[in-house]
């Protein structure tokens, strides 16, 4: 395999603006196969915008976004999205679908056979630690926040995508649930050898999950390195983030 084929997502001089407001400013970024890239930053720094450019929920004002070496605008939009898993905060489950129907959404859209789809749904629910017998026929509002988020992950994985996009998936959960989900998720993604782009504003989460951290500020990437090197950075914003983690360690 050539090097370019291992590049799953690439941003080239991407600008994004709404009216006169610049959200992304000449963004350049690359993610290779098997990486878990963390987009870290405060609200409004452009990290969610960056994520949404990948599955073309939005399109860049200028510059190029490539997925598997092909411009997102050259992909068939529906095909592009169906081969990328997407997990968002508070899961975004369909309240009128059962858990089984929620998980089987993309397989259903892709017209999988009944037996294959059923087996896959069961497998996915087990994978995220939910008993299929108990949960398959329930509705989202009957589940706890953590359980719903597990379903959200199962739904994103159901059609076996190589790339996962996650937008602060654990942000709204209580600390204990969050920590256990983070650990399980990290293990899961590594075992399944997925590539993931993960948005968060929590450095602790970035350290638990990430193989690479891209620190964003005002629409630019100010630091892009491994967690190990991130700790050594002299950048003021990076230092400020490290303070948040050190304070925990102090107690």
């Amino acid at each position, binding site marked *: 395999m050539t090097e370019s084929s291992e590049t799953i997502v690439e941003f080239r001089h991407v600008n994004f603006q709404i009216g006169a407001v610049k959200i992304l400013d000449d963004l350049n970024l690359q993610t290779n196969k098997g990486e878990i890239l963390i987009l870290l930053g405060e609200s409004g720094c452009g990290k969610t915008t960056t994520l949404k450019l990948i*599955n073309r*929920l939005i399109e860049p004002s200028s510059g190029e976004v490539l997925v598997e070496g092909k411009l997102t605008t050259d992909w068939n*939009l*529906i*095909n*592009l*999205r*169906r081969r*990328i898993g*997407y997990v*968002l*905060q*508070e*899961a*975004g*489950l*369909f*309240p*009128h679908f059962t858990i089984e129907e929620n998980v089987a*959404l*993309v397989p259903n*859209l892709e017209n999988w056979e009944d037996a294959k789809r059923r087996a896959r749904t069961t497998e996915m629910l087990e994978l995220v630690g939910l008993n299929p017998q108990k949960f398959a*026929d329930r*509705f989202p*509002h*009957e589940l706890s926040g953590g359980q719903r988020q597990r379903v959200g992950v199962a*739904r994103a994985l159901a059609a076996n995508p190589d790339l996962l*996009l996650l937008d602060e998936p654990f942000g709204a959960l209580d600390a204990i649930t969050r920590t256990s989900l983070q650990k399980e998720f990290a293990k899961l993604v590594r075992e399944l050898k997925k590539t993931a782009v993960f948005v968060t504003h929590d450095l602790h989460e970035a350290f638990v999950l990430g193989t690479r951290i891209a620190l964003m500020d005002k629409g630019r990437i100010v630091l892009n390195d491994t967690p190990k090197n991130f700790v050594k950075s002299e950048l003021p914003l990076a230092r400020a983030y490290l303070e948040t983690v050190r304070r925990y360690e102090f107690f």
Partner: protein
Amino acid sequence: MNFFEFLQQNWSELLALTREHIFLVFVSTALAVLIGVPLGILLTRRKSLQTPILGVANILQTVPSLALFGLLIPIPFVGGIGAKTAIIALTLYSFLPVIRNTVTGISGVDKKVKEAAMAMGMTDWQILKMVELPLALPVMLTGIRVAVVIAVGVATIAAAVGAGGLGTYIFRGLRQNDNNLLLAGALSSAILALVADFALGQIEKIYSLPNIKNKTSRQRRKFVLIGATALILILFGLSFWQNSNNPATNFADKIRVGSKDFTESLILAEILAQMLEKKNVQVERQFELGGNLAHDALLSNQIDVYPEYTGTAYTAILKLSPITDTDAVYQQTKGQYAEKFDLTISPPLGFSNDFAILIRGDVARKNNLKTISEAVPLSNNWQAGFGQDFMSRADGYAGFSKAYNFNFTKQPREMDLSLTYRALASSQVDLIAGNSTDGLISALDLFQLADDKRYFPPYQAVFIARGDKFELLSETFERLNNQISTEEMRRLNYTVDADKRAPKDAASDWLEQKGF
């Protein structure tokens, strides 16, 4: 006759009117949904259209219903008289709640859910069908429920354009001073509104989110949806079948007889219709048209003939200032109608239905009043009550009070003409302007003051017909020439208004008497 006896005797007619009412509401709501829901969906996709389209729907709902019906009459294809016009007006009224709730419902779907749907690679159509519509359905159903309840109420007005429904009883009840008719019409439409509200409320409940927990209620929802769709299609099919069986087309040998919405006009129209039927002419009745709708219907080729009064045609339609010479009014009206509208006027039927200034019989006797002039000195503290028509027309209140030098200290009360008789009899008002042939004048012991200054123009009864139908009608018109005296007309009115005989029976009795 008490109310229950009335119901016993008339239940089959009441049932038929209820069925017409339901039909009007159902078809118009179905149309409003078929057009309004897609329009609402479009508005959620093209947000810039929301303000103008919702604005128009808003304005449509503020147009008074009778005015909307009136405005539609002269419009080709959509207008005219009968169920079609009523359905179009009702549909226009139902648009606002249907469109608005579709927009509100779809806009109210959780943004995260919509984002997830897009990110999962659902097409626009799949998002609409699988996510937005199911989640917006309870709000949309509320809109439909509101539309139906409004339509049940507004549909009572449809009787004024000859569309039938329970309004027929309400209008007839007002006209004939009959509480049983009024109660039967009003009560039935109120019950209909409550039943519709309750039933649709139940469907709404089935579709609301907390209720979709288990599979059984999901099956029930599917069942309700299929059932409702089937019912809509069946009723729709029936409506077209009914329409195609009853085409309002202008056959050469068919006469469409219209009438205004008061007893005398109905009786005269019946007399003409029955005489034509005896000559084997096919007749279609389009009775009880309110206001000037009969004239509009004649002009827009919805009816061929209706009874009218020369004075009304002269002042209210030709807008000429009133004159008192009977022959001059007839001749000028005839000439101008032929010239302006291509309408012909029959020879006078014999009687005149002039404005009659009425007071209570006991007041007249006590003060020995015979003429209007004699009443003027006593009238300063009287409360006058007049119909809307009399208050607004050129030869009505303004000219009349000036001519006789009336000086009422109390502002005259403006009310429905049919209510003024009852108001006078029960001393709510002291002086009214009624119609000289009204059967209620003797029934309620009212007294007509003579028009000693000959102020009021003559209102000779005639038929007005479309020019192209005159040949078919002229023989019948000639036979009716000068055949109905004021006394006879008063008696005919009385048999209907006080004795509660149907206009068609009163008409056939009279025809028999006359040997026609």
